[in-house]
């Protein structure tokens, strides 16, 4: 876990990697303000420069230029490409055709590896370890790729999982198959409340109203997946709540002031992790 170690050392200022004179192209074909800001902050904290492209409106992509041509052109200017694209496999393709490193900042519903790494980093920071943790995942587990990546990443560390989601938003079969193959214990439950005292980490994701065909179904379920202070009565002292943000109402504001809320620090950890990723890929001196 070289990246976790790097991030730790960067955060504690044990090392100060030097990106001066280097340029990162942040290509957000699919816009995402938060992820973009996080990477841009990481670049600038390292002393590097960035250029940004957001959406496809202001590029030649609209004039019918292929993605491959766009990427090859930009790779003539930059030392590193960070890209987010709606098309799945786009970043992998980019890394195959370019001579400079490519960071996948999300490709469609497929991967968001830097998010998974910052989540691991946050868990390690709060728990002092990654092994043998009990982790609850709550909300839309079917389409939320952050929970998929995290479940996969943690599966190397003998976790116990509770998956709490409405019936049609369950963890996808392929993830569950992978976990079974690795002998990971998990339980699918409707209600997270009863298992709260067991949890080391709870990872909450947003349930979107649009995912329900019938509004009444949403209203009926909504409350079982909204985390309030009441949920936190009997939790462990090391217990932390995480959320990839943005949040809507799935964690009430009153929770923010408890020692269990960790989502804003989690966002901050994202910058350290992205600094670590860039440091590694560009082999920066420190």
């Amino acid at each position: 876990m070289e990246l976790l170690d790097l991030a730790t050392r960067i955060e504690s200022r044990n090392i100060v990697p030097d990106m001066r004179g280097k340029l990162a192209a942040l290509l957000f074909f699919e816009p995402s303000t938060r992820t973009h800001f996080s990477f841009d902050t990481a670049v600038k904290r390292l002393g590097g420069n960035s250029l940004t492209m957001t959406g496809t409106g202001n590029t030649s992509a609209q004039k019918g230029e292929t993605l491959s041509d766009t990427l090859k052109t930009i790779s003539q200017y930059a030392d590193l490409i960070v890209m987010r694209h709606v098309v799945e496999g786009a970043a992998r393709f980019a890394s195959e055709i370019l001579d400079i490193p490519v960071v996948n900042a999300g490709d469609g519903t497929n991967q968001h590896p830097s998010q998974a790494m910052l989540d691991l980093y946050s868990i390690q920071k709060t728990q002092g370890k990654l092994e043998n943790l009990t982790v609850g995942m709550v909300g839309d587990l079917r389409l939320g790729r952050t929970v998929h990546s995290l479940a996969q990443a943690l599966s190397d560390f003998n976790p116990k999982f509770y998956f709490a989601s409405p019936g049609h938003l369950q963890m996808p079969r392929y993830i569950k198959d992978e976990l079974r193959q690795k002998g990971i214990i998990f339980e699918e439950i409707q209600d997270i409340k009863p298992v709260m005292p067991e949890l080391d980490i709870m990872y909450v994701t947003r349930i979107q109203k649009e995912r329900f065909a019938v509004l009444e179904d949403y209203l009926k379920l909504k409350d079982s997946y909204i985390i309030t202070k009441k949920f936190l009565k009997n939790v462990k002292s090391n217990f932390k709540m995480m959320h990839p943000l943005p949040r809507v109402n799935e964690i009430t504001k009153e929770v923010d002031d408890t020692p269990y809320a960790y989502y804003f620090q989690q966002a901050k950890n994202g910058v350290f992790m992205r600094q670590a990723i860039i440091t590694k890929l560009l082999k920066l001196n420190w």
Partner: protein
Amino acid sequence: MKKDKLKVDPIKNGTVIDHITAGKALQVAEILNISSSETEVMVGINLFSQKMGKKDIIKIENREITQEEANSIALISPTASLIFINDYEVVKKYTVEIPQEIKRHIICPNTNCITNVEGVKTKFTLAGKSPIEVKCSYCEKKYSIEEVKFRF
């Protein structure tokens, strides 16, 4: 190989593909691009097989199927075996094997996959043997072999 099996329609030189999953012979023929070739080809469908109940068989004159071609057959008919004939004699036999990595031949069913959007050559890895499952190296989605289409 029993002699009498070959006696039916023996070929002088070429390849016999035996034990093809019943009903898959035409697809195998398509994979091998046989229809556009000049050679003589015999295709048997739903023949009696002691081992399989029913099987298909293809005999191709004057062509030696390569290992790579043979292994792409394995995707749709993992039971197939190849027999190479030279001057009516069996010179070599082997059973096809599903390759760990399959390039080009599988079309990714995911319309939002870069291979479909940008016309990138596909690359799949074998993700499971029974039932056969393949995984796209780009979008990382897994599919059963029945779900995918082929391009040869």
